[in-house]
């Protein structure tokens, strides 16, 4: 049973990890918690569902289309909120509020359109389960783990091997210095929102396949935030570790302590981390930027 619980935990955790990485990317460069990430999760879930249902295309195609769509939506959100606030010299609190507003607005619109219904995909995708000994592994969970690994590999290639990735990492350290290198900071920030939007989109779509599609699915963004804090805000590896850890913690607490209390214990864990290691589990004390 313990191994089965670990499988369950890793499957949940791999999604948190993917969400946390997208969340962390924006945090890194701008130092703000971007809650419009939650809106992109929900849009990813709904768009891939709508495309699969109404255009009757295969689910993987629908997911890909919806990823592109959430990436663009996220870039658009950057353009109409953050860009304007930044040009006006408004502080990050304004952006935090704007991003929360986008999140709530999109959720409200989806509640309205879906009339709050929970829906599932018309055609089965990655349904069923395979077994390894006593372990029951749903295909969707295995698929999610695989897809998160692929996404993380692609992301780390982009971040560490491309010109765009170099610019993102440079700008994450200092926007001003990045500008002095001739980096187009508006384009870079928009690119980061695009990438983070695609990550939210793929997770949202997969969560929709795994569970169901419902307007409050964007609330998974809070798990992304927790994972980032646990792993160390602004640390991509930490975000992945934090996601896996929270997924496992949640599952094991539900299994061996009490599932009704599991959200409370997850919060308690977060508080303990914040008190004992404010820089997160994987984080180093931040370096002076000089």
């Amino acid at each position, binding site marked *: *049973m313990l191994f*089965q*619980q670990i499988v*369950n*935990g890793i*499957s*949940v955790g791999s999604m948190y990890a993917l969400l946390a990485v997208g969340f962390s990317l924006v945090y890194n460069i701008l130092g703000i918690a971007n809650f419009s990430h939650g809106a992109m999760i929900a849009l990813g879930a709904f768009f891939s569902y709508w495309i699969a249902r109404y255009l009757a295309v295969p689910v993987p195609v629908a997911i890909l289309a919806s990823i592109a769509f959430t990436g663009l939506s996220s870039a658009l959100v950057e353009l109409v909120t953050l860009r304007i606030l930044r040009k006006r010299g408004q502080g990050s609190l304004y952006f935090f509020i704007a991003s929360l507003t986008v999140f709530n607005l999109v959720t409200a619109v989806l*509640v309205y359109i879906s*009339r*709050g*219904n*929970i*829906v*599932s995909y018309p055609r*089965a995708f990655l*349904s*069923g*389960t395979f*077994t390894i000994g006593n372990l*029951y592994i*749903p295909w969707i969970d295995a698929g999610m783990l695989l897809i998160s690994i692929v996404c993380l590999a692609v992301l780390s290639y982009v971040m560490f091997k491309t010109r765009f990735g170099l610019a993102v990492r440079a700008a994450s350290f200092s926007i001003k210095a990045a500008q002095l290198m001739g980096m187009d900071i508006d384009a870079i920030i928009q690119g980061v929102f695009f990438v983070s939007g695609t990550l939210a989109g793929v997770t949202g779509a997969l969560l929709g396949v795994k*569970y*169901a599609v*419902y307007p*409050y699915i964007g*609330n998974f963004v809070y798990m992304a935030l927790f994972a980032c804090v646990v792993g160390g805000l602004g640390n991509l590896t930490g975000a992945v570790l934090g996601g896996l850890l929270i997924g496992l913690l*949640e*599952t*094991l607490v*539900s*299994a061996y302590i*009490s*599932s*009704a209390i*599991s*959200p409370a214990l997850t919060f308690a864990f977060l508080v303990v981390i914040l008190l004992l290691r404010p820089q997160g589990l994987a984080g180093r004390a931040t370096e002076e930027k000089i």
Partner: protein
Amino acid sequence: MLRRAASILAISALVLLVAGMGISAQADVIVIGEIAALTGPTAQQGLQERNGAVLAVEEINAAGGVLGKQIKLITYDFKGQPAEGVSVYRKLVQQDKAVVIVGTNFSNVNLAMAPVAEQLKVPVLSNAMEPAVTTPEPGKVNKYHFLAQPSSIEQGAIVARYALDELKFKTAACLVNKGNSFATSQAEAFRDYFNANGGKVLDYIEVPAGAVDFKAQLTKIKASNPDCIYIPQYAQEAGLQVKQARELGITAVVLGANTLGVPPFVEAAGSNAIVAGTYFINNVHFGDPRLADFMARYEKRYGEPVITTNVFFGYDNVYIIKAAIEKAGVAEPEAIRTALENTKDVKILQGAGTITLDPNTHRPVDMPAWIFKWEADGTTVPMTLMYP
């Protein structure tokens, strides 16, 4: 600025006053208020509930009304929020001058409304199954709240009895949404009946409201390997639970509440094959020949078939009210309340065709319900009618 705000306030107060007078001036109509879920995840049920009530009102008015007066039905949405339920209850009583209210079938909403109804003294006939809605504590009854279907204690116990006596199960597990008293009250009743009558509930697991991943809990249930799992949740949540149970290779039979007879349950579970073999309880059997005439009337009036049991809630509640007003001889809240308390053998569509309320509990006496089973072809088959 302030002065302008004040004058806007004054004008709107005046408008409200005139509107209020307009309604209360229509003394030749009887206003029945209805509170239903017109939006949100259960909107389909709520909208059909309203349709059922409207159909009953139309029939009654066409036949001359009650006490020579026409009935006017005013329906409000509680938007999924207990607080909103309380607010529209007040509005129906104070602004619309309703003399009696019908709805809801959400225990959380009626639990919130109950104390307010005791203050404003306009009776509510609901389908909220949690017994605390009508009897907040043993020996005490809410004077202004009534239930028109078997309570959750009865429904939980009926399902437990079916599992023990008919399906011959020895062991069970309960998975229950802690945030929903509809679920907890049935699960407790199931557990108590099952344990008290020779069975054993191996796991009784509460999950937090809003959870969508139940794998950890189900893995635990799988380890104790019960004969059946009782999941008295709303349709979509229960659907997810069945789906995840099957993904983990759990083969135990699933039993559920009266919420599982609808398409959203199957949709959330993923397919007919996944829900096949699931049992649930319901007050009505849509294929009952006794109902054929009504089913046709409904479909003709609305151009859509009866899909949810809520149609019968709406329809029957209006007829129970009609009987009470006739018995009272006057359309006053207090008189209606007294008459409702003494409801006896009033003809309805649900159960076995009549309803009698117990004056001490404000709940039905001996009202039966059907046990259904989902088949692999996507149909539901009635197994038996069970009395509490």
